[in-house]
């Protein structure tokens, strides 16, 4: 199909589920009710690191209105196994340990016990009566703390894995890996200019507005029924079954509407606990987190410590690059440093590269995915250094990036060679955008640019399409809809079937009704579930051709289908006419599509940011912002723009305000939105978007996932803009007013007032 033939793809029909969402009728996690339902409350650790000596729940159990109390002693001791938790696997003991702490608490907010009672207030009151004796231990809160000699050991059984081998060494470093390409040492000697800088970023949270919520019934037949808000019902099923030591068949998960996830609602936190409470009480149990629970008890994204060294020749060619990436995993290994390492230099064609990654446990909540996990931290560092080199060489920052841009055939240090990618096209779109050339007048203003990459995933998706007698279809898929994917998936089915988007009625299935489907994450839903819908639609067409052949007493192979009409030997019948005759020709037609694509095309994203820095207060205001992203093919351009705008603003929040502000004892001091400052409407300008389309060669419509890459460039673009505005470069996120003022004061106090070229030249 050539582009011009598309009738549905590339248009902007209204969302199928929009009416329910603008009337308040859509049911999210906490909106679900069952008769006889109890309310759960989770007691959490007040300490960042402590041994649990004793837990006494007797007073809570005796409290009027309490129906059940559980602790880790109620969790089954099943043998160790790796559990696939969506986009990766984790040892069962870690998942279980995070659910309810066993012998130690590893972060403030770690769940310790849970109560089910007749109301949330009663459950909370009763939980306060649980007595826990702690032996408080010293804590390590950053990678630097945790890697120091003599640092408190957080997981006594942890042994460092180095270069893929077990070393048997105890400590807080779960893994050290290295990627090598060419000869970096030699590459640096070829350079005329070498810049090496050190960076730090704070822990930040995904900040979805809906707190985690679940309702679980442990039925008398031994079946566990779950209704929850999550990014993937099948992942919830797998993890819940594993923790409860049940076969997956005994757990059914119905996904409710989800109020944002951004990677943070892939892991489970509540379901096994609610299940145990339900088993003990014999009644369904609902648990809804408070906002403080969300900040302190769920997985934020890692803080990091990074060093980036890059060398370039005078002619603008980057000759070598080196990265040291140490990410905070939180309480259990899995800091997303591996994807960070895949992305750190991915935008560039560099012949000589060394990347060292460290996955380090610290006494903070176990970290989870957040939109392009690991890539944003790394890009902040790389793109700052790239900017500095461009300036030192006297080159335009976009031109310098273009001179070194990754393209088809470029090998990444972690192994893969790029297939067709849109890095050059994204950079060209930035260069050609009126924003890039617009004059930026006024004092204390500056413009910064940056690019970023996210590799996207494919993974398994299932879809069925049932044909109705009036020629409309019902589509069932397994992808939780976070942002309009019911529609972007339906549009691909409609295009294939020659229908209109509104002729498709999409629903999201539960784990009993649809085939296995991976999480909504990894920018995969419009790509992979859309592909499954195309396969299901093709299956429908194949079956309908047989029906037409039956009517015409011909061979199905001779029937052709184009834009809603079947034809053979001069005869024709529309999809709708044939749909009306299914009963007479053999019964219902149900098409199925099941895919597991492995080679999803990555997406590049670019940002142009104009800022103004108030020299009195250090406040950075974003005046203008343009996001550019390669969507492969934009199925519904409004939703692509929406992803780009949302990701950009999360990146701006990460750049300027957001951070877990920790006390020395490991308590988060800003666990409310008053103090954890996410961007409001007042903090922002409109976010301009440019959709670049370099189709993915494999996908039926050329789709590349667009959910993530857009968050990667903004912190670096904003930082580069702050530098242009002030002459001061910041090496730590967030660049809040305090950080900016400190940097400005330091510049003033330095001899020579902080020259732009400092020690960079080699």
């Amino acid at each position, binding site marked *: 199909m050539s582009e011009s033939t598309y009738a549905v793809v590339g248009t902007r029909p209204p*969302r199928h589920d929009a009416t329910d969402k603008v009337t308040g009728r859509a049911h999210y996690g906490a909106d679900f009710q069952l008769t006889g339902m109890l309310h759960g409350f989770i007691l959490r650790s007040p300490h960042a690191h402590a041994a649990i000596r004793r837990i006494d729940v007797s007073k809570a159990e005796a409290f009027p209105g309490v129906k059940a109390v559980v602790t880790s002693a109620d969790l089954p001791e099943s043998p160790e196994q790796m559990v696939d938790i969506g986009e990766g696997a984790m040892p069962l003991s870690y998942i279980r340990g995070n659910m309810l702490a066993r012998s130690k608490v590893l972060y403030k907010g770690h769940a310790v016990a849970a109560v089910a009672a007749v109301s949330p207030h009663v459950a909370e009151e009763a939980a306060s009566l649980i007595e826990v004796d702690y032996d408080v231990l010293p804590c390590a809160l950053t990678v630097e703390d945790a890697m120091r000699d003599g640092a408190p050991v957080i997981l006594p059984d942890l042994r460092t894995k180095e270069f893929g081998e077990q070393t048997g060494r105890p400590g807080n470093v779960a893994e050290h890996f290295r990627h090598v390409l060419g000869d970096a040492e030699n590459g640096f000697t070829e350079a005329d200019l070498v810049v090496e800088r050190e960076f730090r970023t704070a822990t930040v949270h995904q900040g979805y*507005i*809906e707190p985690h919520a679940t309702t679980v019934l442990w039925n008398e037949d031994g079946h566990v029924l779950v209704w929850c808000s999550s990014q993937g019902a099948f992942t919830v099923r797998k993890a819940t079954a594993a923790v409860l030591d049940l076969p997956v068949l005994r757990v059914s998960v119905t996904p409710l509407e989800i*109020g*944002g996830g951004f990677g943070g609602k892939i892991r489970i936190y509540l379901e096994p606990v609610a299940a145990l409470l339900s088993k003990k009480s014999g009644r369904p149990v609902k648990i809804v987190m408070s906002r403080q629970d969300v900040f302190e008890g769920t997985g934020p994204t890692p803080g990091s410590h990074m060093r980036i060294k890059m060398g370039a020749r005078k002619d603008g060619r980057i000759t070598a690059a080196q990265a040291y990436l140490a990410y905070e995993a939180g309480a259990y290994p899995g800091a997303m440093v591996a994807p960070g390492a895949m992305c750190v230099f991915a935008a560039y064609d560099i012949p000589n590269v060394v990347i060292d990654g460290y996955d380090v446990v610290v006494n903070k909540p176990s970290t989870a995915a957040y939109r392009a996990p690991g890539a944003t931290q790394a890009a902040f560092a790389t793109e700052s250094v790239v900017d500095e080199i461009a300036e030192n060489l006297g080159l335009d920052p976009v031109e310098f990036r273009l001179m070194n841009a990754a393209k088809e055939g470029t090998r990444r240090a972690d192994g893969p060679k790029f297939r067709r990618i849109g890095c050059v096209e994204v950079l060209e779109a930035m260069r050609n955008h009126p924003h890039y050339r617009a004059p930026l007048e006024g004092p204390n203003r500056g413009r910064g640019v940056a690019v970023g990459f996210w590799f996207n995933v494919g993974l398994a998706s299932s879809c069925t399409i049932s044909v109705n007698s009036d020629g409309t279809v019902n589509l069932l898929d397994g992808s939780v809809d*976070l942002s309009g994917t019911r529609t972007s998936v339906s549009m691909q089915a409609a295009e294939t079937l020659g229908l209109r988007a509104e002729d498709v009625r999409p629903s999201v299935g539960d784990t009993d009704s649809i085939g296995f489907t991976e999480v909504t994450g990894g920018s995969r839903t419009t790509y992979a579930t859309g592909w499954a819908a195309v396969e299901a639609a093709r299956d429908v067409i194949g079956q309908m051709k047989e029906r037409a052949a039956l009517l015409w007493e011909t061979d199905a192979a001779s029937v052709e289908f184009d834009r809603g009409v079947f034809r053979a030997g001069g005869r024709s019948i529309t999809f709708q006419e044939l749909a009306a005759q299914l009963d007479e020709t053999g019964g219902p037609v149900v098409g199925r599509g099941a895919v597991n694509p492995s080679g999803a095309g990555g997406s590049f994203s670019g940002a142009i940011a104009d800022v103004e820095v108030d020299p009195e207060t250090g406040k950075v205001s974003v005046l203008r912002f343009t996001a550019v992203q390669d969507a492969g093919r934009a199925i519904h351009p*409004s939703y692509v723009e929406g992803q780009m705008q949302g990701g950009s603003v999360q990146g701006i929040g990460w750049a300027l305000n957001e951070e877990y502000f920790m006390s020395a004892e490991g308590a988060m001091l800003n666990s409310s939105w008053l103090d954890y400052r996410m961007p409001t409407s007042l*903090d922002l300008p*409109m976010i301009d978007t440019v959709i670049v389309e370099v189709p993915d060669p494999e996908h039926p419509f050329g789709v590349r996932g667009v959910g993530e890459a857009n968050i990667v460039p903004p912190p670096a673009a904003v930082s580069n803009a702050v530098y242009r505005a002030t002459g001061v470069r910041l090496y730590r996120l967030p660049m809040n007013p305090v950080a900016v003022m400190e940097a400005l004061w330091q510049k003033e106090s330095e001899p020579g007032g902080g020259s732009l070229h400092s020690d960079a030249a080699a």
Partner: protein
Amino acid sequence: MTHRKTLVRATVNQESVEFLCEPRQSLLECLRDILGLTGAKEGCNDGNCGACTVILDGRPVNACLVLGVEAEGCEIETIEGIARAGALHPVQRAYLESAALQCGFCTPGLIVATKALLDQEPNPSEERIRMWLANNLCRCTGYDKVIRAVQRAAEEMREVRA
């Protein structure tokens, strides 16, 4: 622990209602858990997200910061009361048509807050809209399409009035 309950009489979406609530229950809890009106959402329960916005005697409030007992004698409008006679309100239509929602969790609060604004000010500037909606956090959209939806709704409502 049982707490003595108070009988509260109020008007919700133009209908008289009576409910029994504990002194510690917020209006948000009363609407959601007692009256079954789950359209208003709880994002923070401390007045910082606006997902629970309802209109109380003509003014938008965070229902999580109002006690149920304080609603005595008040007139309350929730997201469930915005559409009339099977037709969406222009504000709802504008959000829907402008793709101004992704997960939709902030949407009821934003729509109620927007209606409260446009009921008083038919032609707010972009700056005014941004200021008014600064109480309503949205993490998905970056606000761009939300602001445009408000502008679109304002325009449509002005045309209807004209």
